[in-house]
C-alpha cells in the first residue's frame, strides 16, 4: 500500500510537473499570507508584518528546492538537463563529436563482430535438450572410433544414459529422375533423435528399431533441404527418394534451427547408421574394429561427473585392449569435451583463434579509448575557463563530474549504436560469403540479444576508461589562473597526456606487429610447398559408386575420361586421384615394413592413402624425387607397387634407400606388401599447418577407386577449362553429380581460410590502430603547438632559428614515440606465443616483421607530427603577438 503511494507520488510529480510547481508556489504563498494576516491582527504595520513573516519562514527558494528534492524525480530532471547540456556542447564541436563517435564505433564494432563469432561458435550451446549433459568422446589424440568399439562402449558403460554415434558423409540424393543432389549429412545411431530430444517438425525421427543390422531405408531431411527441394511440402513425409540409386522413404523433417550435432557444418539429412552399405557402397566399416571413422557423444547420467565418466570409459578401453591386443593400444585414453566442435579437434584451435581475436579486438578498443581520452583531455583544457567560472559560481565538483561524464556516456552510447550497426553489417557480409567447396561449412553469424548486451557493456565500460580521467582532471582546475585565462603552466611537466600518447603508440605497435605477422603468415601460406602446384591446374570431382558403378565399369570410365581429357585443347597432363589433398576424408591405414615383424599397436605408423592414375603427378605438379612414376602397366595381376612421400620413406626406412623395398598396409603379417617404386615430395594433406605426414600413393589400376577427382594441367584459363571438363564428363555419363569443379587455387579456400581470416581481421585491426595512433598524435601535436603559439612567437621574435623551434616542439613527442614503440614491441615479444594459434610458418618473433612494423609506426608518427610542426616554424611573431 505504502509503495503504491510512493509510485503514485513519483509518477504524479514526473508527469504533472507544472501542476506540482504551481502547488508548491501556492502552498508557500498561503503560508506567507496567513502569517502576514496574523501579524497584522497582532497590530503590526503592513510593511513590518510582511518582513517579519518573511524572516520567520526563511529562504523560500531554498526550501522549495528542498521540497523538489523529495519528489523523487529530481535525479531524472537533473539527468535530462545534463543530457540537454551535453548534446548542446557536442553539437558545438561537430568535428570532435564525429571523430569521437567514429573512433568508438570502429572499436566497438570490431569487438562486437569478434564477440559474435565467439558467441555463435564457442558459447552458444547445441540447440538440443540439456546440452550441458552431453559430452563428446575424444580418443587419444584423435576423435574417431570404430563402430564395433562404439557398440562395446555403449553396451558396457555405466556413466551415460545413452551413447550415440554419428558420421558426416556425402551422398547422391535423387528426388525424381534426373534430379540428383550431392548432399552432406549424418549416418547416425538409432537413439540419436531420442537422446538429443529433437522433435521433428513433421513425421518422426528414426529410432533404434530402424537401426538394427540391415537397417531400414528411411531418412530425415533438414528443414533447409525440405524448403529448398520439397518446396516446404506438408506432405513430404512418406515420399520416396533415391539415395545412391536405392529407394529410401522420408519419415521426418528436422525442426528449423537444428542442422546437426556439429556447429560448423550444415547437415541436410540423417539416415540410420546400419544403412552404411547403401550410403557408402563398397566399404564395410560397421564390422571392422580397425576402422576409425565415427564420432561418439553421450548423455551423462544426472549424478555422474565428467571425470567419473572418463574413468568408466577407460576401464572399458582396458578391457577391449585386453580382448583385442593386436588392434587396440592399451595406453590410449578417453577424454570428454563439450559437444559441437568435433571434440577437441576443432574446439582447441578455434578457442585459440577466438582468444587471439578477442585479445586483439580488446586492444583496438583500448586504443580507441585512449585516443578519445586524449581528445577529451585536450577539450577539457579548452574548457578550463568555462569550468572555472562554474566552480566559482558554486557548482559542486560532483555535479560537474556528473555532467562531464554524461557527455562521455552520450558519446559512448552513440558510438555503441553505430558500432553495433557496423558489426551487424560485418556479420551479414560474412554470412553471405560462400566458400567454393564441397562441404557445407556453416558461416552464418547472427548477433543476438546477448551480443547486444555485450556491446552495451563495452560501450559503458569504455565510458569509464576514456571519460573518467579527463573529467577528474578537468574539475581539478585551479580557479584563479583559469579565470584569468592564463595558460596552465602544467603542460611542461610530464603529465597524463604524455602517458596517453605513450600508451597509444605502444598499443598500436602491438596491433601493427600482429597484423604484419598475419599478413606475412598468409603470404607464407600462399607460397607454401603444398606438394602440388595449384596454379594452372583444374579439377572436377564425382562419385561413380554413388551412381551404382561397379569396380570394372568405373575403371573403364576413368580410363576413357583420362584419354578424352588429355585430348582437350590446352591440356598438358591429365590424371585421376580418389580424393584430392586438403579436402577432408582421408583414409589412414597402418603401414609396416615386410622385412620386420608386425610392431605392437602403440608403435604402429599410420599413413594417408591416395589412389592415383598415371599422369596424376604431372597434372597436379607433384615432384617425383626418385624412382619412377606409376605407369599404365601397373595394373591388376602385375606386381603390387606404390609411391611414397619423403616423410614416409624417412619414417619407415630412415637412411636406407627405400626404392625396391616392400611395405604392407594390412595387419596380416603374411602379406607380401607392395614395392616402393618412387618417392615424391612431402606436401600438405590435411591442413596447411600440419607437420610432415606420411603418405602412400597406390595405382588405381591395382586398387580401383570410389570417388574420383580428375585433375588436369592446362594453358587455358581455369574457368574455361572447368567448363570443358564438366562437358566432357557429362558427355560420358549425364547422370553424374559433379562437385568441386574449378581451378585448384579457388579450391584452396578452405585450408587457406584461417590464414586469410586472420590476415583480413588483423590487417583491419592494424590499419585501424595506425589511423588511431596517427590522429591521436596529430591532435596532440596540433594542440600543443596551438597552446604555445605565443611562446613560440616570442622565441622566434627573439631570434630562435627554425631548427631550435622544431626541436622544442618535436623533442618530447619523439621521445614519447620511441618509448611507446619499444614498450609495444617488448609486450608483443612477451605475448608472442599466443599468436602462434593463427600463424603459419612465421615465427611470432620474426625480426623482419618487427622491423617493418616499427618502421611503419615511426613513419606514421612523423607524418602525424609533420603539419603541426611545420605550422610551429611558420608562426609569424608579429601577428601572434598582436593577437594577444
Amino acid at each position: 500500500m505504502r509503495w503504491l503511494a510512493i509510485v503514485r507520488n513519483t509518477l504524479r510529480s514526473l508527469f504533472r510537473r507544472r501542476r506540482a510547481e504551481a502547488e508548491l508556489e501556492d502552498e508557500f504563498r498561503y503560508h506567507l499570507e496567513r502569517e502576514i494576516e496574523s501579524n497584522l491582527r497582532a497590530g503590526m504595520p503592513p510593511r513590518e508584518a510582511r518582513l517579519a513573516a518573511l524572516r520567520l519562514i526563511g529562504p523560500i527558494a531554498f526550501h522549495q528546492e528542498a521540497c523538489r528534492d523529495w519528489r523523487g524525480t529530481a535525479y531524472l530532471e537533473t539527468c535530462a538537463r545534463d543530457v540537454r547540456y551535453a548534446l548542446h556542447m557536442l553539437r558545438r564541436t561537430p568535428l570532435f563529436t564525429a571523430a569521437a563517435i567514429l573512433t568508438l564505433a570502429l572499436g566497438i564494432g570490431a569487438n562486437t563482430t569478434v564477440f559474435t563469432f565467439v558467441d555463435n561458435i564457442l558459447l552458444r550451446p547445441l540447440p538440443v535438450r540439456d546440452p550441458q549433459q552431453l559430452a563428446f568422446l575424444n580418443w587419444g589424440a584423435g576423435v574417431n572410433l570404430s563402430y564395433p568399439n562404439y557398440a562395446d562402449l555403449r553396451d558396457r558403460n555405466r556413466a551415460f544414459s545413452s551413447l550415440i554415434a554419428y558420421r558426416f558423409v556425402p551422398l547422391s540424393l535423387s528426388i525424381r529422375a534426373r534430379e540428383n543432389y550431392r548432399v552432406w549429412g549424418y549416418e547416425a545411431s538409432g537413439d540419436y533423435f531420442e537422446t538429443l530430444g529433437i522433435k521433428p517438425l513433421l513425421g518422426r525421427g528414426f529410432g533404434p528399431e530402424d537401426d538394427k543390422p540391415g537397417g531400414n531405408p528411411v531418412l530425415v531431411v533438414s528443414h533447409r533441404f525440405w524448403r529448398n527441394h520439397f518446396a516446404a511440402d506438408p506432405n513430404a513425409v512418406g515420399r520416396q527418394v533415391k539415395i545412391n540409386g536405392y529407394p529410401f522413404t522420408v519419415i521426418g523433417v528436422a525442426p528449423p534451427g537444428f542442422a546437426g550435432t556439429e556447429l560448423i557444418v550444415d547437415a541436410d539429412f540423417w539416415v540410420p547408421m546400419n544403412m552404411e552399405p547403401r550410403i557408402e557402397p563398397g566399404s564395410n566399416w560397421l564390422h571392422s574394429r580397425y576402422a576409425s571413422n565415427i564420432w561418439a557423444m553421450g548423455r551423462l547420467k544426472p549424478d555422474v561427473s565428467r571425470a567419473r565418466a572418463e574413468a568408466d570409459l577407460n576401464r572399458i578401453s582396458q578391457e577391449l585392449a585386453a580382448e583385442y591386443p593386436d588392434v587396440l593400444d592399451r595406453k590410449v585414453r578417453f577424454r570428454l569435451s563439450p559437444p559441437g566442435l568435433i571434440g577437441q579437434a576443432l574446439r582447441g584451435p578455434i578457442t585459440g583463434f577466438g582468444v587471439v581475436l578477442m585479445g586483439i579486438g580488446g586492444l583496438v578498443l583500448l586504443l580507441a579509448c585512449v585516443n578519445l581520452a586524449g581528445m577529451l583531455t585536450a577539450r577539457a583544457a579548452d574548457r578550463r575557463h568555462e569550468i572555472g567560472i562554474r566552480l566559482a559560481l558554486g557548482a559542486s565538483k560532483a555535479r560537474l563530474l556528473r555532467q562531464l561524464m554524461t557527455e562521455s556516456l552520450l558519446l559512448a552510447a552513440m558510438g555503441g549504436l553505430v558500432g553495433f550497426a557496423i558489426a551487424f553489417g560485418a556479420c551479414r557480409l560474412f554470412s553471405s560469403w560462400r566458400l567454393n567447396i564441397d562441404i557445407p561449412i556453416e558461416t552464418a553469424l547472427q548477433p543476438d540479444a546477448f551480443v547486444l548486451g555485450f556491446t552495451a557493456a563495452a560501450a559503458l565500460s569504455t565510458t569509464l576508461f576514456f571519460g573518467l580521467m579527463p573529467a577528474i582532471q578537468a574539475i581539478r582546475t585551479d580557479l584563479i589562473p583559469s579565470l584569468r585565462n592564463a595558460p596552465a603552466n602544467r603542460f611542461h611537466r610530464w603529465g597524463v597526456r604524455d602517458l596517453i600518447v605513450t600508451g597509444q603508440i605502444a598499443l598500436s605497435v602491438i596491433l601493427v606487429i600482429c597484423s604484419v605477422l598475419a599478413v606475412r603468415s598468409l603470404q607464407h601460406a600462399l607460397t607454401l610447398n603444398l606438394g602440388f602446384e595449384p596454379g594452372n591446374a583444374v579439377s572436377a570431382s564425382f562419385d561413380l559408386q554413388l551412381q551404382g558403378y561397379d569396380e570394372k565399369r568405373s575403371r573403364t570410365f576413368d580410363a576413357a575420361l583420362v584419354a578424352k581429357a588429355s585430348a582437350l585443347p590446352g591440356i598438358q597432363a591429365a590424371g585421376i586421384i580418389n580424393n584430392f589433398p586438403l579436402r577432408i576424408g582421408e583414409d589412414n591405414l597402418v603401414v609396416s615394413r615386410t622385412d620386420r615383424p608386425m610392431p605392437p599397436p602403440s608403435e604402429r605408423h599410420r599413413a594417408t592413402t591416395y589412389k592415383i592414375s598415371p599422369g596424376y603427378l604431372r597434372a597436379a605438379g607433384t615432384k617425383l624425387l626418385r624412382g619412377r612414376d606409376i605407369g599404365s602397366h601397373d595394373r591388376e595381376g602385375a606386381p603390387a607397387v606404390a609411391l611414397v612421400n619423403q616423410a614416409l620413406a624417412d619414417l619407415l626406412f630412415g637412411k636406407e634407400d627405400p626404392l625396391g623395398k616392400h611395405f604392407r598396409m594390412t595387419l596380416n603379417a603374411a602379406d607380401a606388401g607392395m614395392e616402393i617404386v618412387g618417392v615424391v615430395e612431402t606436401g600438405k594433406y590435411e591442413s596447411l599447418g600440419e607437420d610432415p605426414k606420411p603418405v602412400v600413393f597406390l595405382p588405381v589400376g591395382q586398387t580401383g577407386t570410389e570417388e574420383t577427382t580428375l585433375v588436369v594441367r592446362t594453358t587455358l584459363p581455369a574457368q574455361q577449362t572447368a567448363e570443358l571438363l564438366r562437358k566432357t564428363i557429362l558427355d560420358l555419363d549425364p547422370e553424374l553429380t559433379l562437385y568441386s569443379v574449378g581451378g585448384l587455387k579457388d579450391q584452396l579456400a578452405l585450408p587457406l581460410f584461417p590464414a586469410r581470416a586472420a590476415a583480413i581481421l588483423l590487417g583491419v585491426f592494424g590499419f585501424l590502430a595506425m589511423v588511431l595512433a596517427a590522429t591521436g598524435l596529430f591532435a596532440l601535436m596540433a594542440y600543443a603547438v596551438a597552446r604555445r603559439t605565443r611562446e613560440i612567437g616570442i622565441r622566434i621574435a627573439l631570434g630562435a632559428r627554425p631548427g631550435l623551434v622544431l626541436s622544442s616542439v618535436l623533442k618530447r613527442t619523439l621521445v614519447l614515440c620511441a618509448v611507446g614503440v619499444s614498450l609495444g614491441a617488448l609486450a608483443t615479444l612477451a605475448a608472442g606465443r599466443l599468436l602462434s594459434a593463427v600463424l603459419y610458418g612465421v615465427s611470432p618473433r620474426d625480426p623482419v616483421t618487427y622491423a617493418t612494423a616499427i618502421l611503419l609506426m615511426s613513419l606514421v608518427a612523423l607524418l602525424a607530427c609533420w603539419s603541426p610542426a611545420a605550422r610551429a616554424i611558420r608562426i609569424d611573431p608579429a601577428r601572434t603577438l598582436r593577437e594577444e
Partner: protein
Amino acid sequence: MGKPTDLVQGTLDLLILKTISLEPMNGWAIAKRIVQVSGSVLQVQQGSLYPALHRLEHQGWIKAEWSDSQNHRRAKFYSLTAAGHKRLQSELDNWHRLSNAIGLVIEAV
C-alpha cells in the same frame, strides 16, 4: 540543496505526525500548533517544515489534499495515511523508550 538534516530531523517527523493525527491541517497551522502546544518552547523554523512534509508525503506516511480553509482560501491539508498511523505509533514507542531511558540515567545520580 541538502536535505533537511536539522537536529530535530527525527523529532520533527514525530511532531508533525502527532500534530496531524487529530485532524487534517495545513502547513501554517501545523507550525502554529507546535509552537502553541509546546508553550513556545519548540520554535519550528517554518521553512524547513515544508521539506519535511513533502518527504513524509513522498514516503507515503501522510497524504495531502487541497480544500478550503477557514477563510475560504484553498490550502493544502495534510493527514495521516494508514501506514502513517502505524508509523506514528512506533515513533511514539521509540520516543517513550528513549525518554524513559534518559530519565533513568539522569535520575539515577
